[in-house]
């Protein structure tokens, strides 16, 4: 059971949209943002996120919760904008009536930006002078806790099946469907990190051991594996794993 965003391994997708130059050779060049509105959708999402009303896991979950037909039809930044809009309403930063008023004005061509003196600045606003400082600090997800890891490097583990999120049915999780119920080996332990399955639902950070787990291609894809000895490594929290029964 999964959502559309969880697309690792699925069939049906065509060629990778690799950019090519005029000689039809693969090029590394691509503008950072293809359209002005892409950059705006991205920047207002970051700026609104800085108000502190939601965390990264919540915003990811909002994108995943877009109705399947929208998730499929929307381009990347349309998904961002739709999820942001839903967050703004749910977190009561904006009312639905206000949104409708601005949408109406945008469609009529009567959208008007207030002059600075008419804007009442919110206390939580992210100011331009703080941008570099905030970006430089980032949002570390490691937490100092006294939780000790249960597994050791080299342990054979099996991943949860069906519904990894034990609190919310259809809730946020970072265990992809293609790696559910599969056997892998602990490659490394990476300290304790905020647990998205809870944090995305406002249930607290619950930092837990995070491991990198290596799965053989043959274990994930069976006979379809391109080469048995290739592997896929995933970063997985302890509750996604149990020791492989000997």
């Amino acid at each position: 059971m999964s959502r559309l965003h969880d697309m690792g391994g699925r069939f049906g997708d065509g060629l990778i949209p690799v950019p090519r130059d005029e000689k039809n050779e693969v090029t590394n060049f691509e503008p950072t943002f293809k359209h002005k509105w892409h950059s705006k959708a991205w920047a207002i999402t970051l700026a609104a996120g800085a108000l502190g009303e939601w965390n990264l896991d919540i915003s990811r979950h909002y994108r995943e919760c877009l109705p399947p037909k929208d998730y499929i039809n929307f381009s990347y930044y349309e998904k961002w904008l739709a999820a942001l809009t839903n967050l703004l309403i749910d977190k009561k930063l904006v009312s639905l009536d206000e949104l409708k008023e601005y949408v109406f004005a945008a469609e009529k061509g009567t959208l008007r930006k207030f002059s600075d003196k008419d804007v009442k600045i919110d206390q939580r606003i992210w100011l331009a002078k703080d941008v570099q400082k905030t970006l430089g600090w980032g949002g570390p997800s490691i937490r100092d806790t006294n939780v000790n890891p249960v597994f050791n490097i080299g342990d054979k583990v099996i991943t949860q099946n069906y519904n990894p999120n034990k609190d919310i049915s259809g809730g946020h999780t970072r265990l992809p469907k293609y790696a559910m119920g599969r056997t892998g080996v602990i490659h490394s332990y990476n300290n304790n990190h905020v647990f998205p399955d809870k944090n995305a639902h406002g249930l607290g950070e619950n930092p837990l051991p995070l491991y990198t787990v290596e799965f053989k291609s043959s274990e994930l894809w069976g006979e379809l594996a391109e080469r048995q000895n290739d592997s896929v490594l995933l970063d997985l929290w302890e509750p996604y794993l149990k020791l492989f029964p000997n």
Partner: protein
Amino acid sequence: MSEKKNIIGDHHHPHDHAHSHLPSDPELRVKAVETLLLNKGLIDSKTLDELIDTYENRIGPKNGAKVVAKAWVDPEYKKRLLNDATSAIRELSYQGRQGENMVVVENTPETHNVIVCTLCSCYPWPVLGIPPTWYKSDEYRSRTVREPRKVLLEFGLSLDSKVQVKVWDSTAEIRYLVLPMRPKGTENMDERELAELVTRNSMIGTGLPKEIK
């Protein structure tokens, strides 16, 4: 049970979604939300400009290229980079958002590493900037874990069947950077010249550094 109240529920009812009220033209859609937030004093237009300028002009694959070139010429740095990438990358003043926990994986004659995020678009911003369109595409996200060799062929990269492919799916807050192999014939090049050879794709694993003609 005050916590319960804060649970963000499962969105079962598409008609409840506020986003369905937005205009059909995405440009207008962004304009409407942006203007509303600006007029409510929730965002500052100078902040938006600063953010966009930062990632269009200051933070991008040139940063990662400097990390790679330094690792190629300085064995001690390479050791630090493979042992604790976050600290080693911070030595060059690259740090922060979407690069809080960096891991560098080394390509060798035996192993080729490729980075993907099947669940969204996780990417090491401080060293590579904002991900390219193909990295965020459904095609790359769905296929890379199942058939990495076919995917790499589409990038013009053909791997010997003896080489092991390791695909790193960024499912948590660890961000990966590939350390590609130094091209042959570059023994006399200095760090700055070497950095020019390091392409974005070579640091994701979908390409190799430029070769010396």
